[in-house]
């Protein structure tokens, strides 16, 4: 027997907002949908920006990528602010416990001076590259079009600030909070020849105008190479050389990368699938940025890991590009 409770007087008049209904039909919507679709204003903007009078305030032509519907860029994680911060809060709690454990048990004492020097030379300077990633994702968020992609860029931009801060804390653990290792790492970043290729690449991104191109140069090309070199290969090297505990301090980035790559790959795939023109443009951007990235990172990769490292990282990037339907 089924019991039907009479609730007709409290029936909703509608299931969701009209613009959500126009997109997805007359049914209850998810919080991601209501927080994302058609939230950005599109028409009848009042004044042209004094800082860029040739464009409108919200203007889809700030990139050469063309989309029939900018809301095609659905985030596979379906992050809106609330789900984003709650997900990151869980990750930071684990990270916080890891850092606390590392410090409480003085695990830094188990690292040889030589190993500490290697971390300061190879890992800690990356915090500056992460700061560049913060700028570049903010750029895409500020000048991009449609909430679906711009909110994800914002979350990524803030993630990168968080990662830069975690990397800085590794430095502080190594130098007992004196800040000396951060100063040394910064000197490496600004002066050591092995870092100059990467630094020039990062600086170049910050003066690149097309926001989608910036996204490709940063989130697609550079991040894939850095992830493989530093968080896969160098991590393996650390494990093999008695510094496996450092993995507790970089675990955040590994978990983060898994989550973020899902979004990066989906974004690339959607843009490429939209049209042959987009696909050709993406391939052109990727080829040229990849060429400079490989050149920029090679001296660093060789010194840090050996001759084969760069080829391996490149292959990891190519695999992801193929999955996104590019260069086929």
């Amino acid at each position: 027997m089924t019991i039907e409770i009479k609730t007709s007087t409290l029936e909703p008049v509608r299931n969701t907002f009209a613009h959500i209904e126009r997109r997805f039909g007359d049914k209850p919507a998810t919080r991601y949908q209501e927080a994302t679709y058609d939230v950005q204003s599109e028409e009848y903007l009042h004044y042209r920006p004094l800082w860029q009078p040739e464009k409108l305030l919200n203007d889809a032509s700030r990139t050469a990528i063309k989309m029939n519907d900018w809301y095609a860029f659905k985030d596979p994680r379906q992050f809106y602010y609330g789900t984003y911060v709650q997900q990151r809060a869980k990750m930071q709690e684990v990270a916080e416990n890891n850092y606390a454990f590392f410090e409480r048990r003085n695990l830094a004492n188990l690292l040889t001076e030589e190993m500490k020097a290697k971390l300061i030379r190879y890992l800690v300077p990356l915090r500056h590259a992460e700061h560049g990633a913060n700028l570049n994702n903010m750029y895409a968020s500020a000048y991009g079009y449609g909430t679906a992609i711009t909110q994800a860029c914002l979350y990524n931009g803030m993630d990168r600030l968080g990662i830069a801060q975690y990397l800085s804390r590794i430095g502080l653990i190594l130098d007992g909070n004196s800040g000396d290792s951060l100063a040394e790492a910064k000197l490496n970043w600004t002066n050591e020849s092995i870092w100059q290729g990467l630094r020039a690449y990062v600086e170049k991104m910050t003066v690149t105008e097309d926001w989608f191109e910036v996204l490709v140069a940063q989130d697609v090309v550079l991040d894939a190479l850095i992830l493989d070199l530093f968080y896969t290969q160098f991590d393996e090297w650390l494990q093999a050389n008695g510094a496996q505990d450092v993995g507790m301090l970089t675990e955040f980035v590994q978990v983060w990368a898994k989550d973020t790559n899902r979004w990066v790959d989906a974004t690339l795939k959607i843009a490429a699938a939209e049209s042959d023109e987009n696909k050709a443009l993406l391939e052109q951007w990727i080829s040229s940025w990849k060429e400079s990235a490989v050149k920029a990172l090679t001296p660093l990769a060789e010194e840090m890991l050996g001759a084969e490292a760069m080829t391996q990282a490149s292959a990891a990037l190519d695999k992801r590009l193929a999955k996104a339907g590019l260069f086929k």
Partner: protein
Amino acid sequence: MAKKLNIKDKYRLLTRDLDWDFSYEDRKEAFPFEEFEGIKITDWSKWEDPFRLTMDSYWKYQAEKEKKLYAIFDAFSQNNGHLNVSDPRYVNAIKIFLTGVSPLEYQAYQGFAHVGRQFGGVGARVACQMQSLDELRHVQTQIHAMSHYNKFFDGFQDYSHMHDRVWYLSVPKSFFNDARAAGPFEFMIAIGFSFEYVLTNLLFVPFMSGAAHNGDMATVTFGFSAQSDEARHMTLGLEVIKFLLEQHEDNVPIVQKWIDKWFWRGSRLLTIVAMMMDYMLPNKVMSWKEAWEVYFEEAGGALFKDLARYGIKMPKYAETIEKEKEHISHQAWWTFYTHGHAAGFHTWIPTDEELDWLSEKYPETFDKYYRPRWELAKKMEAEGKRFYTKALPQLCTTCQIPMLFTEMDDPTQICYRDTVYNGDRYHFCSDGCKDIFEDEPEKYVQSWLPVHQIFQGNCGGPDVENVLADFYRMNLGADNMDMTDSPDEKRWKQWKGVA
């Protein structure tokens, strides 16, 4: 044992130290918008961080806030919380909120993302980025809070489409467009300082307290939760102005001009909040005038005394603004009442108790100027002649509000100002709006004035009804007109089992 770092040193090392001097590109090309406004920044390193929140703490605290907030949203909708509001008329206030205010939070996200990318100083940049993220939070939590009301009341459903088009919504929209179209430093004085530090308090504190007093758990929860971020934003706003004033004395007159402009723009914008507080909250917390005295005159007065050491003076027109607190809510609600067929929410005549409350709160003006109008409207309605004006209102070119404000020294006389630019005559509601136009006419001639656009045939037609139904996508007779006999009211009575 490692020494303990204090919060300031830690923040410096973890955040301020991340940037570096460029060698391979021109830094000015990476941060190109810092100079054109004439502001002189001699040393970004002098920036004092207004709050020192690293991302890990940010995620932790914000997640805690969100967890609480969404638990309440879930409980609210599972328990049909909309049935607990004091009076269905109240819901119309939050229709204005969703259509008029929430999209501004979105523009704040965009504006702070822009300056959060463009400022050359890493401290200021990161503070703006965090605010950008907070603002995105605010628009999304507001949409989620209203989502439940949208299921049971008319007028919420096309808020985004309406915000881009509807005549009175171009007021808030153009306000934020104006700030975003300005240079990065003016944006910070406009939004970070004037709006966040002084003016949003009036919306988020007394109005939210009013929401609580009217049984609206969803709104009060998002309101106060948003305000908990706002305290950080206010600190940023104050730091920005102090930083600019300390960097170079040449910045002082530029900043003063922006203060004059944005306090006037802001007080015009808040007219709608004044009306929401005095007329749309069935259970009253405080009058607009009282709120204005606490949050603008007292708090703002203290602020300007503090800034006097830099040579900053009270905003121009402060005297006019002081007089306006007695009038603007009444003038605005009357305008909406008489244009109730073209609004996206319901209007009504205040009840006798409400009229008495207004008489008590506005002893100098209400009985003398405004009560007689409502007595007349009551009489006409009783005779079955509910009044709707047929004419479309003339709009002020700057603030885009219909010409509804009077001369403050003669509240029976509508205030009109005009000026000629490039052979065309432009109209304004006040000296403030006229001065703002004359300072940057090439900007304000771009205003997309909804009434002009209708007359130019850019919004469909031929009749106003076609514009409302087709271009604005309003459901005529359901989303608008009088509260009495509206579908909202009928449903409410059905839910409550009253005839």
